[in-house]
């Protein structure tokens, strides 16, 4: 008995110590020389302003090439070395939060998935940029930022924490050769999409050709994105104007039912298809349609990765049915860029942020292969960009922005994503009916929000 009491008292003691201290350790900020006095340098020294300095840039795997380009250009201009750290897109918010809360504070600049903005801010990961925005307003040409992204990617509770970086949106692509072979035309509603898909699959499955590739893998970015393409177009939404969840509204259920029906004729099996599998099917001409981002044309016309060069077309996402139906373009994926609140090299980090945010740099990185989509109106008018991406795409993007819907960015959203992803997945494989799945989601959401 004695021993037991000893152990128990030690545990209680420790608990109290931990609770009392609850340290939020800040990583040591390394003082390094400020960049001042370089703007009007005399030509005497050709030394670069940030020579000898280093920063670390946390970015996602699909942005590897683009990030390396940026790193290279930044070093050329300022002499500051940028170490690029790449993680899967699913993990970047998690990684950033861990970095800060564990006290390590390794990263300076963070390329993050925008729905995680609220989470990042709540956990104190991102530095407040209000002042920076105010100071650099002119240079950054804030009015040039596409309105879809301008606030959503940057602002929480009226304060600025990031700058838009990659403006992803989904469009509907189709394989012109397959369409011709099976006598199909571009669908403008999800019902037509379903019919097209079904027709092609029934005729072509024996040859391994399917009407569409649907990305239904159990990851929020993938599965909720695919669902949102339908949800919005049926007139549904995650929340109403007052912030109450409406995930089991009749429109939401109809959208999920459509998705589940379509998945039956999609590239097998939708619930296991993510980026790579969808692209695999698309590039090899096995999938006639795919909802994908605006960088797809570049990759499709690259003979090294694709065997369907030039055999594609693009259009907006189909519309739902019902009285609330409308054309939408969901901002699926999409990334902002911010500076860590505990960045070890804050000054150099801020310079890098400004670098990436500059219109001239944006023009550069949008026009090389790297998968970064425009966040500025000027990019869409830039002849270089139009030539690079193709006129069709640029027009499609412009149209899309008129109908864009974005994901929530509140602090609770990351928690809400999980039950939604789970239930969508269960509905997709037939373990729950769409109504059931969304009712359950609604119930869980109310519980989470009610807390």
């Amino acid at each position, binding site marked *: 008995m004695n021993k037991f009491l000893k152990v128990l008292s030690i545990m209680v003691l420790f608990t109290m110590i931990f609770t009392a201290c*609850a340290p939020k350790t800040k990583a040591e900020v390394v003082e390094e020389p400020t960049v001042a006095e370089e703007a009007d340098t005399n030509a005497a020294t050709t030394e670069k302003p940030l020579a000898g300095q280093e920063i670390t840039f946390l970015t996602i795997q699909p942005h590897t090439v683009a990030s390396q380009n940026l790193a290279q250009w930044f070093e050329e201009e300022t002499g500051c070395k940028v170490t690029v750290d790449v993680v899967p897109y699913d993990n970047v918010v998690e990684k950033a939060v861990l970095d800060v809360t564990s006290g390590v504070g390794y990263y300076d600049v963070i390329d993050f998935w925008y729905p995680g903005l609220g989470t990042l801010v709540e956990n104190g990961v991102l530095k407040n940029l209000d002042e920076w925005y105010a100071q650099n307003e002119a240079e950054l040409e804030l009015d040039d930022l596409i309105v879809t992204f301008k606030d959503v990617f940057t602002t929480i509770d009226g304060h600025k924490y990031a700058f838009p970086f990659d403006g992803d949106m989904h469009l509907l692509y189709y394989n012109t050769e397959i369409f011709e072979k099976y006598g199909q035309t571009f669908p403008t509603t999800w019902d037509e999409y379903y019919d097209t898909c079904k027709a092609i699959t029934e005729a072509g499955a024996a040859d391994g050709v399917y009407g569409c590739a649907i990305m239904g893998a159990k990851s929020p970015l993938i599965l909720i994105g695919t669902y949102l393409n339908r949800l919005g177009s049926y007139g549904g939404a995650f929340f109403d104007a007052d912030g109450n969840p409406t995930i089991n509204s009749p429109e939401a259920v109809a959208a999920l039912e459509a998705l589940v029906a379509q998945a039956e004729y999609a590239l097998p099996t939708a619930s*296991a298809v993510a980026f790579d599998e969808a692209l695999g099917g698309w590039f090899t001409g096995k999938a006639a349609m795919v909802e994908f981002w605006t960088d797809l044309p570049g990759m499709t016309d690259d003979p090294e990765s694709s065997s369907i060069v030039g055999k594609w077309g693009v259009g907006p996402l189909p519309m739902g049915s019902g009285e609330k139906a409308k054309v939408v373009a969901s901002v699926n994926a999409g990334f902002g860029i911010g500076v860590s609140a505990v960045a070890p090299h804050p000054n150099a980090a801020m310079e890098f942020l400004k670098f990436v945010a500059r219109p001239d740099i944006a023009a550069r990185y949008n026009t090389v292969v790297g998968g970064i989509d425009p966040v500025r109106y000027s990019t869409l008018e830039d002849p270089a960009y139009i030539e690079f991406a193709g006129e069709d795409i640029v027009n499609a993007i412009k149209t899309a922005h008129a109908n864009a819907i974005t994901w929530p960015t509140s602090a609770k959203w990351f928690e809400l994503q*999980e039950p939604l992803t789970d239930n969508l997945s269960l509905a997709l494989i037939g373990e729950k009916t769409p109504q059931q799945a969304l009712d359950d989601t609604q119930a869980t959401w109310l519980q989470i929000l009610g807390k």
Partner: protein
Amino acid sequence: MKNKLEQISPRIMAIPAWVFLIFFSIVPLIYVVSSSLTNSTLAQPFKDFIWFNNYKQAILDENFGRSLLNTFLFAFVVTSLETLLGFLLAYAVRGIRGLSTLLRSIALLPMFTPPVAVSMIWKLIYDPNSGLMNHYLMQWGITKGLIAFLGDSKLAFPSIMFADIWQWTPFCFILCYAALQALPKAPFEAAEVDGASGWTVFKRLTLPLVLPQVIVVFLFKLLISLKVFDLVYMLTFGGPGNITQVASFYIYRVAFKQFNTGYAAALSFLMLLIITIIATLVIKGREFFMRRSE
């Protein structure tokens, strides 16, 4: 007559071991238990002291219950199959002299491969379009169309189990082999002279003598399987739906996707208790068997 130094130097020698034990076992355990009694998130650990609320939530949590069932199902099925297969293989080769080191190394390769690499390999094998599995199944005429193993609600779990069996049967094999080699040779010669058939010898002699060790092998592997994570993370991410979501994976999601570390700590501690209970039961079972055969 030991002087002071001789008396205390053994204790000093033991200090590194103590340090290791404290830092890697005791402190984390205390931390987890403390954390589980509080409302903690990744950013703000030890926010408030909420006593046993996390545990109450855990008991009511359907997802957790489901994940535990998945874990038990997985663990018992794969462990049983691996122990059985490992034992049969060991029994089959027990008589071969000089089971060369090379052959043994090859047999053990799956165990030496890093778990993440194993998971990646199987992910590629199971790929519906370009994977080996579909390729050979169709080539040998066993199936007609492409099968998405990891996306199919009925095949996902068995697929993960199959990969685990591939990875860990060598472990059971090598341990059972050692156990069989350690059996005394003389009684078996006596049995030969006494005229017993192979089956009689196995049933009445080999099996009862080697069973205590085989149970230990079963227990070791069971403890390993109850903590399975890599395969699930890489192959299915708990999907489709929640079908392959095992307990450790669910805890990972709670901690790193929902950032609720206090709750995750409570779940972890509950898992610890459950695993301890299971292990104790197996050990008691073995003792019972050993006593009964005396």
